[in-house]
């Protein structure tokens, strides 16, 4: 928490700094110091300690310009932000003007002499020594300072607020025009620097006003902000501009020489001019600009009023479509996307009802389906409009179909006055493929103008992109989901294979299984029947992939359950066949080789149900395929032919005998030239490696297969089990019962 406190502290310091940064503080200090010094100067002139000669008036005039220049710069920083609404823009100068009038009126009441009759009335009223400009009373000092300061505030606020209007949709030209105007105003003001307040403008000084006023007119044509005003705001702005105009006229144009006319701030010109002649010119110019700008504003607004509602509606539609387009881009869930897309044009006021068609692949081919409707019920839609006929029209044209008078069209069965006056159907195209169509109706006939159709088309392009993206997104999700599922399936299946080789007297075993895809149909397993007997099985489900994996799991269940109770390989296979014919699909069968090794009797018994024959070799190198009769499980539903064909054989074991069990994936593996691995090659590898222990023998078989397949492909699941008999005296060490895993060298 202390860290948070520290953070907040730094933030508030930053905020304070932002508000009172050094630049602003200096500007404010300059303004305050300048105004106070001006009061001091006037006071010294009043007391006569300074007269109108020498350096002092120059210093004063220069200081005044610096002071008000600083004030203008400071205020222009304050008003730099772009206004969010245009009504407050008018309030600020109106308020400033009212404050000025009030303050001016109040100070003008101070030291007002009772109406005398003599000719020096003006002099007395104004309170200046007209020749030297010396203030004659303290009240005069107060009046000239207060009036000047408030008039400055009013004029600066007026200028800066007008600037924010002129700057709407600014261009380089508009910015330049504004700067030229300001420059010309300053230039015209500076021409009267140190001119006597008693004198009027000379020819040059008067002519300098002309370009300034010209630029005012140019800047007054910057009215683009008006266009975006809603109708009611336009009315409000007309009122406010009018108010401001009256205010400006009352401040600026009132003739101070006109006796008897009411004036809030009598002789305000004189006061400001005696304060500073350039300021007076600048203020006058500002007020003239304000009057021009307000006048053009009022006139433009008046001309814009009749079109305001149409324009506002169009702008509203554009804005609504735009915001909905953005929304559409954020939705991925198809149903939500459909209803958002459907509702948008109606909510934007472009139509009265709408519905969305998406093509959907069904058994009958690709058909358009109404996915979503808005302000029209699906039932009414079916009843009144032949949607698929409209869609096939779109399909052939790939362009919007516009029915100006819908009831006249043969595809619309609504009669005039039933709420379907005109209809537009727009194709939704993405990557030059037709995804569907959006159809909208209006109650009136000829309800869609060309620009409406254009707006709808633009919208539909966006919507189609969003739909396309949502579809891609969904496909990817689906793919990822499938991949996850398959990874789980593979994990589960690997658990169905033995994790450990059982440990039994006289035997060593090594085994591996590799599915061609994520999951496969190969299976091998062992079961210790009793202390001397081990059952082994190898099985291959027809086909590959997921369905094979399911039946492999079934086979595993049958082995676990039946091996314990079957008293011979033949009995096991008959029982397994019986169990399987009930669950196997017609076209699925399982080849199985099942055997039992008795380490006490030193015998091996096997039976073969359609499986690849075991490859055997003895110590002397006599290699052969142990092929017995027997058909695959699940081929004979009755079981009679199966049982009749099934042969079991028992052989005596002698030390060094090796038995290799494998699936047809091994035999049928292809080399790069397309040759099959074949049975003979297994036998020759066995012959060469028959003296090795099972691990090396297994390794030699797999190694040979790998080198054969190199650059070729394992098309099928491959499983290899190697069993070696060492004689009943041989006791396998505990380390022999080790973990097994699937090979990782999957060839796809």
């Amino acid at each position, binding site marked *: 928490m202390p860290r948070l406190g520290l953070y907040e502290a730094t933030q508030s310091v930053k905020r304070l700094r932002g508000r009172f940064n050094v630049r602003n503080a200096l500007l404010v200090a300059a303004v305050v110091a300048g105004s106070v010094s001006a009061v001091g100067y006037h006071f010294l002139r009043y007391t006569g300690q300074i007269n109108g000669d020498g350096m002092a008036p120059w210093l004063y005039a220069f200081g005044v310009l610096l002071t008000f220049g600083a004030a203008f710069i400071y205020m222009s920083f304050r008003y730099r932000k772009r206004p969010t609404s245009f009504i407050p823009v008018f309030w600020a100068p109106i308020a400033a003007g009212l404050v000025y009038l009030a303050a001016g009126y109040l100070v003008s009441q101070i030291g007002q002499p009772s109406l005398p009759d003599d000719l020096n009335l003006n002099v007395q009223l104004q309170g200046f020594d007209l020749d030297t400009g010396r203030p004659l009373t303290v009240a005069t000092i107060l009046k000239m300072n207060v009036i000047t300061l408030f008039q400055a505030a009013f004029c600066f606020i007026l200028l800066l607020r007008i600037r924010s209007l002129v700057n709407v949709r600014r261009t380089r030209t508009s910015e330049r025009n504004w700067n030229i105007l300001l420059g010309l105003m300053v230039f015209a003001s500076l021409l009267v620097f140190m001119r006597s307040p008693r004198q009027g403008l000379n020819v040059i000084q008067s002519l300098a006003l002309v370009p300034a006023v010209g630029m005012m007119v140019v800047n007054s044509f910057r009215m683009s902000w008006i266009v975006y005003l809603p109708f009611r705001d336009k009315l409000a702005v007309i009122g406010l501009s009018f108010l401001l105009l009256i205010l400006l006229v009352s401040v600026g144009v009132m003739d101070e020489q006109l006796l008897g006319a009411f004036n809030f701030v009598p002789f305000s010109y004189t006061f400001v001019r005696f304060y500073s002649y350039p300021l007076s010119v600048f203020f006058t110019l500002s007020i003239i600009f304000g009057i021009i700008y307000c006048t053009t504003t009022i006139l433009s607004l008046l001309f814009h009023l009749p079109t305001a509602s149409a324009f506002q509606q169009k702008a509203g539609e554009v804005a609504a479509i735009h915001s909905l387009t953005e929304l559409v881009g954020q939705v991925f869930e198809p149903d939500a996307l459909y209803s958002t897309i459907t509702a948008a044009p109606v909510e934007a006021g472009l139509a009265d009802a709408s519905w969305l068609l998406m093509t959907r692949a069904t058994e009958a081919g690709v058909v358009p389906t109404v996915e979503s409707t808005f302000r029209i019920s699906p039932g009414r839609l079916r009843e009144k409009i032949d949607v698929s006929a409209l869609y096939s029209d779109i399909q052939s044209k790939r362009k919007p179909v516009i029915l100006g008078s819908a009831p006249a069209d043969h595809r619309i069965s609504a009669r005039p006055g039933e709420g379907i006056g005109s209809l537009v159907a727009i194709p939704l195209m993405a990557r030059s493929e037709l995804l569907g169509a959006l159809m909208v109706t209006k109650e009136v006939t000829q309800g869609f103008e060309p620009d409406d159709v254009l707006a709808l088309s633009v919208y539909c392009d966006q919507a189609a992109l969003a739909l396309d993206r949502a579809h891609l997104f969904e496909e990817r999700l689906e793919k990822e989901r499938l991949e996850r599922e398959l990874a789980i399936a593979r994990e589960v299946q690997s658990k169905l294979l033995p994790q450990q080789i059982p440990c039994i007297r006289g035997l060593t075993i090594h085994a591996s299984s590799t599915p061609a895809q994520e999951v496969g149909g190969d299976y091998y397993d062992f079961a210790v029947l009793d202390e001397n007997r081990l059952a082994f099985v190898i099985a291959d489900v*027809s*086909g590959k992939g997921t369905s094979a994996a399911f039946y492999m799991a079934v086979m595993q269940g049958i082995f676990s359950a039946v091996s314990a109770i079957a008293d011979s390989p033949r009995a096991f296979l008959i029982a397994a066949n019986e169990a399987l014919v009930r669950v196997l699909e*017609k076209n*699925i069968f399982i080849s199985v080789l099942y055997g039992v090794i008795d380490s006490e009797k030193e015998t091996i018994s096997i039976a073969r149900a359609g499986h690849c024959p075991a490859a055997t070799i003895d110590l002397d190198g006599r290699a052969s395929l142990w092929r017995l009769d027997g*058909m695959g499980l699940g*081929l004979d539903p009755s079981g009679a032919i199966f049982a009749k064909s099934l042969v079991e054989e028992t052989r005596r074991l002698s030390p060094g005998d090796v038995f290799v069990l494998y699936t047809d994936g091994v035999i049928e593996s292809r080399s790069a030239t397309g040759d*099959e691995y074949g049975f003979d090659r297994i036998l020759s590898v066995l012959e060469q490696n028959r003296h090795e222990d099972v691990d090396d023998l297994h390794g030699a078989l797999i190694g040979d297969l790998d080198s054969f397949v190199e650059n070729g492909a394992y098309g099928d699941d491959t499983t290899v089990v190697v069993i070696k008999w060492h004689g009943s005296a041989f006791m396998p060490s505990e380390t022999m019962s080790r973990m097994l895993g699937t090979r990782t060298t999957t060839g796809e």
Partner: protein
Amino acid sequence: MSNFSVGFRSTGTFTILDLNGELDAHTASELEAAIQKCKDDKSFQIIVNGNQLQYISSAGLGVFMAYIEDVRENGGDIKIAALQPKVFNVFDLLGFPMLFDIVDNEQEAMSRFENGSTKN
């Protein structure tokens, strides 16, 4: 990619399917479609000529299993003729000769049909 095809021939009441190439999990559907077509045409006396069949996988064998019952119930049969030794070995390993008439040539298949002998 597919290097398997099925050709149709008709001789009298027999429909002869000439299998060509390699019949595996990917191409099994083509044989399925061919036998289904025989069924739709009500020609249930089907002879499969495997002279040009280079390879058959367990999925390919499954196609015969899927249809044999139906065909026999309709009084017909699927007889397999002229298999290459290597392909025959695959049939033989699984015990198909006990379920199907697997003969050396089409003539033998036809005469088996005429004798009316079917397995099962």
